[in-house]
């Protein structure tokens, strides 16, 4: 249906970013050549090659760990918390100052809408550094002691590239650790820009090392004998491999893995806000969110009404150019991920669920998937059990609060859950009974540096954010 009020394109300017033709590794405060096979990072919205990026091989990772160890021993662990804090505050400020540049670069490399990178990712990144900067000289009040672990090896995913970097690096540095971090192979650019920011902040060399590469580079970091701490965000499968790899060592591990969150809508919910919560829960960041509300559990008495409203709302989602300020849903991050989303969606259809996608025109180049909802889904369907990690919602119904809890908890995951009802005591009861690390009641997908995040069961262990997030980077009050 053509609309009399079509929004003209409102593209954010690309001129603020300067993408180099090739990038090296950031080791000991300098960019150096890698010795693996370099790879290309592409703009998923256009398939344009953005840059050639070095791959760190085992020797490069070893260099990075050595640099981190030297910096730890000679500089960072000896520095007072108050001085470490000032470096982190500096970094936070530079991130704010270069916020637009970081946002545009993130959208280009990742495919996420500029309004999300501009209004969510980058502001929260800066906030995260501010928050943990303040902890650096107050660790004795944290409840976890003030003794750092040493060198942290950190491997992060592609869905929130710079935000996941901040979640890893800010608390690690605040606690006095040094880091070797590997960004995802499809989204290395903001991490490499962050390396420049470390230089601008005059952060001592070796405190932050950024090594690019794929699975092999990650494995080299995780299994390096001089790494004291492993922090990983990504798939449950890789998380398990890491847990096995560190078994029998002294390494401390935190894992933030997959999810299949239930978003539970009761018949007395504030319906219009619940619809927004459902949309935000699964279509925010193209559904590339570990805590996405990918299973909608709706009470049968309002199921039809909710579906009607949801579809009407979904039809207003604007899918397309990530740099257009009016885009709500951007590009799928990679061809590989797109194939996975397509495969699971096809399976959903083959298993008998009813598929509906928004009637939007998708660009011809790049990786795209229209916002999609499956109805008539049962717990046995693969689309109700497996993480799709895309803009695909599976809808199930329930009759009673107990049935909702049973269905919500009937998964090996336990990262997040949503509850929508106007009845206060029911919210608290549901929050108690849901086995998930984050419960959003009458809201969804909210993040804050002060708020701990992390999963139950196969969604991983350890918490990131808040006072709890310090535990991962300190030896503990008892040692």
């Amino acid at each position, binding site marked *: 249906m053509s609309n009399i*009020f079509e*929004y*003209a394109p*409102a593209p954010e300017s690309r001129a603020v970013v300067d993408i180099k033709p090739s990038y090296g590794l950031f080791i000991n405060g300098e960019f150096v050549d890698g010795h693996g096979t370099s790879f290309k990072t592409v703009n998923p919205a256009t398939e344009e090659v953005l840059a050639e990026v070095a791959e760190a091989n085992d020797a490069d990772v070893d260099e990075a760990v050595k640099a981190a160890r030297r910096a730890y021993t000679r500089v960072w662990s000896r520095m007072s918390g108050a001085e470490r804090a000032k470096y982190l505050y500096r970094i936070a400020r530079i991130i704010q100052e270069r916020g637009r540049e970081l946002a545009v670069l993130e959208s280009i490399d990742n495919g996420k809408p500029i309004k999300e990178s501009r*209004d969510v990712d980058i502001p929260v990144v800066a906030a995260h550094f501010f928050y943990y900067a303040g902890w650096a000289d107050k660790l004795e009040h944290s409840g976890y002691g003030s003794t750092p672990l040493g060198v942290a090896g950190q491997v992060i995913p592609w869905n929130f590239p710079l935000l996941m970097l901040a979640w890893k690096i800010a608390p690690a540095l605040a606690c006095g650790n040094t880091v070797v971090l590997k960004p995802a192979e499809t989204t290395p650019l903001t991490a490499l820009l962050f390396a420049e920011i470390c230089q601008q902040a005059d952060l001592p060399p070796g405190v932050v090392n950024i090594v690019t590469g794929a699975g092999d580079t990650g494995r080299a970091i995780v299994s390096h004998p001089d790494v004291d701490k492993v922090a990983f965000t990504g798939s449950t499968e890789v998380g398990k491999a890491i847990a096995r790899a560190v078994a029998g060592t002294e390494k401390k591990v935190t894992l933030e893995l997959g999810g299949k969150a239930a978003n539970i809508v009761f018949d*007395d919910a504030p319906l*219009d806000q619940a619809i927004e919560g459902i949309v935000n829960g699964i279509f925010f960041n193209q559904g590339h969110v570990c805590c996405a509300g990918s299973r909608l559990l709706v009470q049968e008495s309002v199921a039809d009404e909710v579906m009607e409203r949801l579809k009407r709302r979904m039809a207003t989602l604007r899918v397309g150019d990530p740099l257009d300020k009016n885009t709500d849903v951007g590009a799928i991050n990679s061809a590989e991920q797109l194939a996975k989303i397509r495969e699971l969606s096809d399976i959903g259809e083959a298993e008998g669920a009813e598929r509906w996608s928004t009637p939007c025109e998708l660009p011809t180049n790049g990786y795209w998937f229209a916002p999609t909802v499956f109805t008539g889904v049962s717990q046995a369907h693969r689309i109700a059990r497996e993480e799709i990690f895309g803009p695909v919602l599976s809808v199930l119904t329930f009759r009673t609060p107990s049935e909702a809890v049973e269905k919500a908890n009937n998964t090996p995951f336990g990262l997040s859950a949503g509850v929508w009802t106007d009845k206060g005591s029911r919210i608290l009861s549901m929050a108690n009974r849901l086995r998930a690390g984050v419960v959003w009641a009458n809201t969804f997908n909210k993040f804050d540096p002060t708020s701990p995040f992390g999963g139950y069961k196969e969604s991983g262990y350890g918490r990131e954010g808040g006072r709890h997030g310090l535990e991962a980077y300190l030896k503990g009050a008892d040692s």
Partner: protein
Amino acid sequence: MTPTSSSTASTASSAGVFDDIVRSESSLRRFLHGLPGVDQVGCEARAAGLATRSIKTTSKAFAIDLAIRMVDLTTLEGQDTHGKVRALASKAMRPDPADPSCPATAAVCVYPDMVATAKQTLGESGVNVAAVATAFPSGRAAMDIKLADTRDAVEAGADEIDMVIDRGAFLSGRYLDVYEEIVQVKEACGDAHLKVIFETGELQTYDNVRRASWLAMMAGGHFIKTSTGKVQPAATLPVTLIMLEAVRDFRDQTGQMVGVKPAGGIKTTKDAIKYLVMVNEIAGPDWLDPDWFRFGASTLLNDLLMQRTKMTTGRYSGPDYFTLD
């Protein structure tokens, strides 16, 4: 029901559909309190999200002209004079004397004693005269006085009546009284269109705004309107969002469209465009028409005109180039 319930049957909107609901105070209360609740934070976040839409070039030009056509150019002051109203009416017909392509506003909005003057100036221009009535802005008067106020304005030529609801009755839970009052005022309006002002700043909660919206729509109001402009806060994006949801849901249920008019505090083109985006995405493009959406405003018009000039000439304009009426 009081004997005046016969009038209910004559109002188009409520014919039959809502008889069971408005049968008694308790059934009406059950209905209004059974409407889905509104979460304040979620509602405000949604409104703020829509406000980040970036409207450029051709769509901006379209929006500015549409917004001008939706303005109820308003003067509601104790110091109003016939001269002031004549000037305002002239401006409503030709907002930008230098540019004949500039559209007229939807209406001028005045007190009842100024209706005849406004009507005289506007003639057959197509610009309507709207009159506030029913002891505007407080609504604190006896019923017969409110009805007389309304009839006066209509007899003087008002095309539209902007009534205020009895917020005291509403807040004390006497919903049926409020309903009856709207029904009676509507009857007094005759052919004039009725806008029902809630004074959302006094209703305080979004739940109340939603209930008032349904109450007014069931009673047959043609428009639901946020505010008198005399109480802060007046119109806000989230309050208008709730009302747009209400008219959308009302059409889903009854097939009938009701208009929405935010009034007070909308001063800039940027503001107006945010409202239009919200109309577009919440109620839908059918409401992008002066018949279904209005801005109650005075200073907004000049800003729209300045932005319009900027769009056509490519340079920024200044207040000296637009009339102050």
